[in-house]
């Protein structure tokens, strides 16, 4: 990994109560599958982000376990039914134990 994985999130800043919003996320990461070999024929060890999770005001909303078939620079989208204002926390967990976090505020009303 040459650069630190950078998460990016697209969440509407405002929503009406009861509105269904789509949340789109991306993170730069090579997602090394552990199935490739280097020039000397040695297997390149697996290093992927294995877990993505989203919570709102501390309450879990959605999570995904990613396996080695997930593409590089993984994309994940999902939905959220807006009921109150608050803050999303998005966490990506790397095989190497690192965690990458993003936060986004949502105003409902």
């Amino acid at each position, binding site marked *: 990994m040459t650069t630190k994985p950078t998460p990016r999130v*697209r969440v509407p800043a405002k929503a009406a109560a009861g509105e269904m919003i789509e949340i*789109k996320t*991306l993170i730069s990461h090579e997602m090394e599958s552990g199935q490739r070999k280097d020039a000397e024929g040695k297997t390149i060890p697996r290093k992927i982000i294995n877990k993505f999770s989203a919570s709102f005001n501390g309450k879990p909303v959605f999570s995904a376990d990613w396996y080695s078939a997930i593409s590089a620079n993984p*994309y994940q*989208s999902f939905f959220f039914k807006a009921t109150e204002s608050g803050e999303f926390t998005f966490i990506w967990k790397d095989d190497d134990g690192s965690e990458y976090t993003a936060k986004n505020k949502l105003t409902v009303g």
Partner: protein
Amino acid sequence: MISRRDFLQATAVAAALTTTSGLGPLGRAAAQQTLSQADILRFEPQGQVTILHVADIHAQLMPLQFREPAVNLGIGEAKGLPPHLTDAAFREHFKIAAGSADAFALTSDDFVSLARNYGRMGGLDRIATLVKAVRAERGADKVLLLDGGDTWQGSWSSLQTKGQDMVEVMSALKLDAMTSHWEFTLGAERVKEIVEAAPFAFLAQNIRDKEWNEPVFPPRKVFEKGGVKVAVIGQALPRTAVANPRWMFPDWEFGIREDELQKQVEEARAEGAAIVVLLSHDGFDVDRKLASRVKGIDVILTAHTHDAMPGLIRVGQTALVASGSHGKFVSRLDIAVKDGKVADIRFKLMPVFADAIAPDPEMAALVTKLRAPYAAELAKEIGRTESLLYRRGNFNGSFDDLICDAMLSQRDAEIALSPGFRWGGSLLPDEAITWEAISNATAITYPNCYRMEMTGAQLKEILEDVADNIFHPDPYFQGGGDMVRIGGMGYAIDVGKPMGSRISGLTHLKSGKPIDASRKYVVAGWASVNEGTQGPPIWDVVRDHVAATKTIIIKPNDAVKVSGA
């Protein structure tokens, strides 16, 4: 539907005079006397809206010859259905007399004598005459002109101007909207540059950016015509990123996207559209399936597969139109709307007989101006042909045989691979092979002719893969053009078999020996979808071969044995 009857009446005299050989006793003059511009335009108008449709012009500014396929197999549910009918079966289905103008325009047998009789077809100046005449007759506020795409690619001038010549011509024609396929091989930046400046809409509901999965182009546009709202939804070739080099548009993702299309239809209806048109580049069989699954489309204007049919095909409430290619036809649909819904559609496939239609002077002048920088180069005679040279057909075409011969000789290869493109004009026996003729069959933005080694097993794998793209029984799994053309090697194909077991009997033609799966063969080919492919442009390879050979003679190609059709 009046159109067929009228056109048959108009050409009945010509048909009666002709023998089965096609060349009537009074020859071309008689045919021209019976076939006038007025006959071609004759139409009993109806309703509030007229739609004119052209597709797959492939940058052909000038009239040309284009022979329709003799082999166009339908697979699965499409078996034996139009447009998968050729020659006598096609004429029988559409009630066309052998030797008639329609037979010449729409079928392939007896092409040479009929071509000498009826002359060339197409030309943007002739198309302009038809379009203007319909606008004058109906009132421009009732007429919508739509282009199904594959317009900016296919000629030397379009290649040199990066599509600008065609953009200017289509702008002058007051095009309302288009969708696309080959346009994307100009590269994403160039396409966006054109689209931002163009006076017409560029519509594609099925293209997303790869990063955020957002639409790249407007999906639809609503036009108000004759007091009626007409929604036009664009559908680019879903397989563009598979069939063409995706590195030229690396950030875009295509696909059929039925669900999103259904949403587009529903949104258009909610906006008050009485007529919903899909301006499609899916290819006919994909659109036939799509029409049975996506509800609420009134008309699908098809393209990509270059089919021309003098009648509508109906799937449920949806009418499918196939307007041919290379400027040979302009489709006209008059649509009557009652109580906010389509009540009736009247259709005519207008054949653009260049000798029967007076060129529009303004468009003729524009075409001359656009071609002027290249005119001398284009007219240059490189050699002559004694054989009919044509492209279309599922397995081979004599123009492709010429290209394969050129690669075998100029690149010193054992086997040549040439893509199954559907575009490019035909040349009659004893015609000059000009630079224009060569470039019309080769003008693409990834022309390099590579030379490399492949094993027999790899050659079979390529044939199986391409065959599955054409003969997969489900049209949604098909993509691309006709079967790859092969020089120096024969094979047998059972089109009814599944992927991996269609191809057999690979034979090295020169030695007569079976292709050895493990042996390496020197292979030349062009139009690689890989970035950085090395080799001279294919047009130079063909030019050098033609110049060295002087007179081209192509023997009938029986190297592909077809079964299972």
